[in-house]
C-alpha cells in the first residue's frame, strides 16, 4: 500500500505524543502548569513533522502510495508497521493540527484545575493512540489504536472522577466501544482465516478470497465503526460523554476519535467497493444517524448535548458518504467538520467558562456581548455546519449528498437534504438562544422551563484567583473560525487539490449521470437550509420572540414530544435488552445456581456418603460377641462352599 522503507519521520509523528504523555504522567506534580507547555509541544512537534512528511505521504511507486515503515513481528502472522498515505495524512494533520489548537485552548480552560498534568497526560496519550489507529498498516494495529483511543476517551470522560455521572458516562462509553472492538476482532478472525494476514496490502489484494464472508467482514467492521462513530444504534454513549471537560469533547468526541469509523470504512474501500450489500447497510445507517441525530438535536437544551447530537448527525453524513463509496466526499466532510465542530465546542466552552459551568442554553442569552470572539467564530462555524455557500461545510456536505445520488442511492439523497434543513434549524436555534436577547441566568430556572437545574461547579474552579490569559482560549477559537470559512476552498472543482491528493488512493469510478445535476443539488440544499434558518429566526430571533424568550422557552420545554426527550427510547431498550438480563442472570447464577444447584449436587454426593457411613456405623456395635458371631457365620459359609465343592467332585 505504501512504499516500504525506513522513515524516521513517522516515528517522530507517532511517538512524541507518547513521550509527552509519559513525561506529564511521571513528573506531573513537579510540572504543575508547565504540563500544559509539555502537552502542547508534544502535539505541536508531530504537527510540524506531519507537514514535513507531506512529501513521503504522497510519493508513489507503481501502485503503492505513501510511506510504509515496518515495526515488529508482533506474533507469527501478525506484522506491525506504520503507514502514512494521503488518507492517514489527512487524519494525522487534523489530529495533530486541530489537536494542537485544542491543547493550547485547554491550557486556558484547565487553568484552575489542580490535576492539569493528569489532563495533559491523558490528552497526549489520546493523540498517540489516535495516531496509532490511523498510522497502522494492518488491522490488528488499527484495533490496538482503536482500543487505546477508547481508553483515552474513558479516562477523559471520567476525568472528574468524583462526579458519579461522569464515572457512569465513562464506563458506558468504554463498554459500548468494546462492543465495537470485539466486532472488529471478529472481522479480523474472518480475514485471517481466509487471507492468512491482517496487513492492509495483502488483504485488499485478496478481497475475492473472502468469498461469501465479504459482507460479514464488512458488517462486523462496520459494527466497530458504528460503536466508535456513534452510529445508530450504538450512539447512546456520545451525548453522555459530554460529561468530560469541553476540550475533550472538542478533540475526541467531535474532531477526531468519533470519525475513526469514517476512517475505517474509507481505509477498507476495496471491501466496500466489492460488496453492494455493505454499501446499502452503511449508507442507510449513516443516513438514518444523520437524520436521527438532527432530530434529537432539536429537542436538547444542554449546549454540549446539542453539539453532541449534531456531531452524531454530521458523522452520519460522513458514514453515508463513505458508505455509498463517495470516499472523497466523506473524508472531505470529516476534514471540514473537524474545524467547524471543534470551533463550536471551544466556543461553547468559552461561554460555559464565562457562565461558571452553566450548560443549559435556556439560562444563557445575550452572550454575544460577553463572549464576542466565541460569537463571531461560532457564527462562522454555524454557517459552515449548516452548509451556507462559501463556508467550509457547504462544499463537503454538497459533495456527500450529491455523491449519494451519483452512486445510486436516491433515498439517501433525500435523507441528506431533509437533514440539512433540520441541521440549519437547530444550529441556528442554539446560536440565537445563546447569543441573542438578554441574559436569562438570573431568572428563576423554572421560569425558563428548567425543571431540574444542575448546580454545576463540578471541579470547583477557583474563579477568584489567577485567570488564564484570555488569548489562550480566544486564539484557537478564532483560528478554527477562520478555517471553518476557508477549509472548503481546497475542494472546488473536479481538479481541486483535494481530488488530486486522492486520485491514487481511491479509484475513479464510472458512474451513470444522475437525474439531477450537481447544480440543482446545490440549489435544493440552499433552499432547504434557508428554510431551516428562517424557521429558527422566526421562532427565536425576531424582536418579538426575543422579548418573550423565557415564556416561549418554557412553553417549548413543556411541549417537547416525549419520544425526542427520551431519545427515541434507545437507552431504555438497551437497558431492558442487555443490561438488566445480564445482571439478572449474574444474580441468578451467583446466588442461586452456584450455591444451590451445583453445590447442591455436591452436597448430595456428600449426603449419600454420610448415609452410607451411618449404615456401616450401625454395624460397628463394639460388641465383641457380635463380631465373633459374624466371623463364625462367614467361616461357616466358607466351609459350606468347600463342602459343596467336594460334593460336586
Amino acid at each position, binding site marked *: 500500500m505504501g512504499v516500504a522503507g525506513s522513515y524516521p519521520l513517522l516515528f517522530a509523528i507517532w511517538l512524541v505524543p507518547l513521550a509527552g504523555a509519559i513525561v506529564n504522567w511521571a513528573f506531573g506534580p513537579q510540572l504543575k502548569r508547565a504540563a500544559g507547555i509539555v502537552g502542547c509541544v508534544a502535539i505541536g512537534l508531530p504537527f510540524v513533522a506531519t507537514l514535513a512528511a507531506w512529501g513521503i505521504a504522497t510519493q508513489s511507486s507503481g501502485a503503492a502510495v505513501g510511506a510504509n515503515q515496518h515495526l515488529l513481528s508482533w506474533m507469527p502472522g501478525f506484522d506491525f508497521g506504520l503507514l502514512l498515505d494521503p488518507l492517514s495524512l489527512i487524519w494525522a494533520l487534523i489530529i495533530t493540527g486541530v489537536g494542537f489548537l485544542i491543547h493550547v485552548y485547554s491550557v486556558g480552560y484547565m487553568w484552575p484545575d489542580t490535576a492539569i498534568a493528569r489532563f495533559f497526560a491523558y490528552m497526549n496519550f489520546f493523540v498517540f493512540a489516535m495516531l496509532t489507529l490511523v498510522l497502522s498498516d494492518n488491522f490488528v494495529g488499527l484495533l490496538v489504536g482503536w482500543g487505546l483511543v477508547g481508553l483515552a476517551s474513558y479516562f477523559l470522560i471520567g476525568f472528574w472522577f468524583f462526579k458519579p455521572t461522569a464515572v457512569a458516562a465513562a464506563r458506558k462509553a468504554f463498554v459500548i466501544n468494546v462492543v465495537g472492538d470485539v466486532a472488529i476482532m471478529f472481522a479480523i478472525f474472518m480475514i485471517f482465516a481466509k487471507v492468512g494476514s491482517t496487513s492492509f496490502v495483502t488483504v485488499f489484494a485478496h478481497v475475492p478470497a473472502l468469498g461469501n464472508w465479504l459482507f460479514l467482514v464488512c458488517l462486523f467492521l462496520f459494527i466497530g465503526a458504528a460503536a466508535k462513530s456513534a452510529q445508530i444504534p450504538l450512539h447512546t454513549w456520545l451525548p453522555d460523554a459530554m460529561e468530560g471537560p469541553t476540550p475533550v469533547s472538542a478533540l475526541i468526541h467531535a474532531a477526531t476519535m468519533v470519525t475513526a469509523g469514517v476512517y475505517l470504512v474509507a481505509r477498507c474501500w476495496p471491501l466496500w467497493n466489492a460488496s453492494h450489500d455493505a454499501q446499502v447497510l452503511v449508507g442507510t445507517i449513516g443516513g438514518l444517524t444523520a437524520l436521527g441525530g438532527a432530530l434529537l438535536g432539536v429537542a436538547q437544551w444542554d449546549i454540549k448535548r446539542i453539539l453532541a447530537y449534531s456531531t452524531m448527525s454530521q458523522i452520519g453524513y460522513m458514514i453515508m458518504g463513505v458508505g455509498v463509496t463517495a470516499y472523497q466526499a466523506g473524508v472531505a466532510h470529516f476534514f471540514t467538520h473537524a474545524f467547524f465542530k471543534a470551533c463550536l465546542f471551544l466556543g461553547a466552552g468559552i461561554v460555559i467558562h464565562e457562565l461558571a459551568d452553566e450548560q443549559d442554553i435556556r439560562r444563557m442569552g445575550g452572550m454575544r456581548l460577553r463572549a464576542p470572539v466565541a460569537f463571531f467564530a461560532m457564527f462562522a462555524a454555524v454557517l459552515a455546519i449548516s452548509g451556507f455557500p462559501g463556508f467550509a461545510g457547504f462544499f463537503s456536505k454538497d459533495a456527500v449528498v450529491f455523491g449519494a445520488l451519483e452512486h445510486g442511492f436516491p433515498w439517501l439523497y433525500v435523507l441528506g437534504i431533509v437533514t440539512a434543513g433540520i441541521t440549519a434549524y437547530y444550529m441556528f436555534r442554539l446560536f440565537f438562544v445563546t447569543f441573542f436577547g438578554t441574559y436569562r441566568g438570573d431568572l428563576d430556572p423554572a421560569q425558563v422551563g428548567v425543571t431540574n437545574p444542575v448546580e454545576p461547579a463540578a471541579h470547583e474552579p477557583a474563579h477568584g484567583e489567577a485567570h488564564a490569559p484570555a488569548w489562550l482560549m480566544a486564539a484557537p477559537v478564532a483560528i478554527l473560525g477562520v478555517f471553518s470559512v476557508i477549509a472548503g476552498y481546497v475542494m472546488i472543482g473536479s481538479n481541486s487539490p483535494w481530488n488530486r491528493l486522492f486520485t491514487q488512493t481511491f479509484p475513479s469510478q464510472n458512474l451513470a449521470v444522475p437525474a439531477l445535476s450537481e447544480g440543482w443539488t446545490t440549489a435544493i440544499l440552499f433552499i432547504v437550509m434557508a428554510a431551516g434558518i428562517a424557521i429558527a429566526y422566526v421562532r427565536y430571533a425576531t424582536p418579538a420572540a426575543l422579548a418573550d424568550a423565557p415564556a416561549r422557552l418554557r412553553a417549548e420545554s413543556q411541549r417537547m414530544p416525549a419520544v425526542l426527550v427520551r431519545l427515541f427510547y434507545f437507552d431504555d431498550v438497551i437497558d431492558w435488552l442487555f443490561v438488566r438480563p445480564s445482571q439478572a442472570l449474574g444474580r441468578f447464577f451467583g446466588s442461586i445456581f452456584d450455591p444451590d444447584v451445583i453445590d447442591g449436587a455436591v452436597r448430595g454426593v456428600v449426603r449419600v456418603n454420610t448415609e452410607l457411613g451411618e449404615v456401616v456405623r450401625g454395624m460397628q*456395635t463394639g460388641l*465383641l460377641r457380635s463380631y465373633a458371631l459374624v466371623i463364625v457365620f462367614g467361616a461357616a459359609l466358607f466351609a459350606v462352599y468347600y463342602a459343596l465343592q467336594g460334593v460336586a467332585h
Partner: protein
Amino acid sequence: MHADLLPVALANYVALSSVIFFIGVAGVVLRRNPLIMLMSIELMWNAANLLFLAFARAWLNNAGHIFAFLVITVAAAEAAIGLAIVVIVFRSRANVDVDEIALMKG
C-alpha cells in the same frame, strides 16, 4: 490291612468335631464372662485338633499331627495373652463384662 482302616467311620469324627466346635461357638457368643469365652475358644481349638487327628489317622499321614501340635502351641500363647488382657481389664474397670467393653462402637 484291616488294622489300618479307621475303627469308626470318619464322618462320625467330623460330626463329633462339628458339635464340639458349635458348642464352643455358642459359648463365645452367648456367655459374657470372658474367662468362659476363652475356655469356649479352647473347645473350638480342640474340636479342630480332633478333626486333624481323625483325618491323619484315616489317611495315615502324620502332617495332621504336626498341625495339631502347632495348634496346641498357638492355643497356649493365645490363652496366655487372653488371660493377661482379662487381668488388666479387670484392674482398670473393676468388672469384665465384655458387653461393657464397647469402646470400638462406631
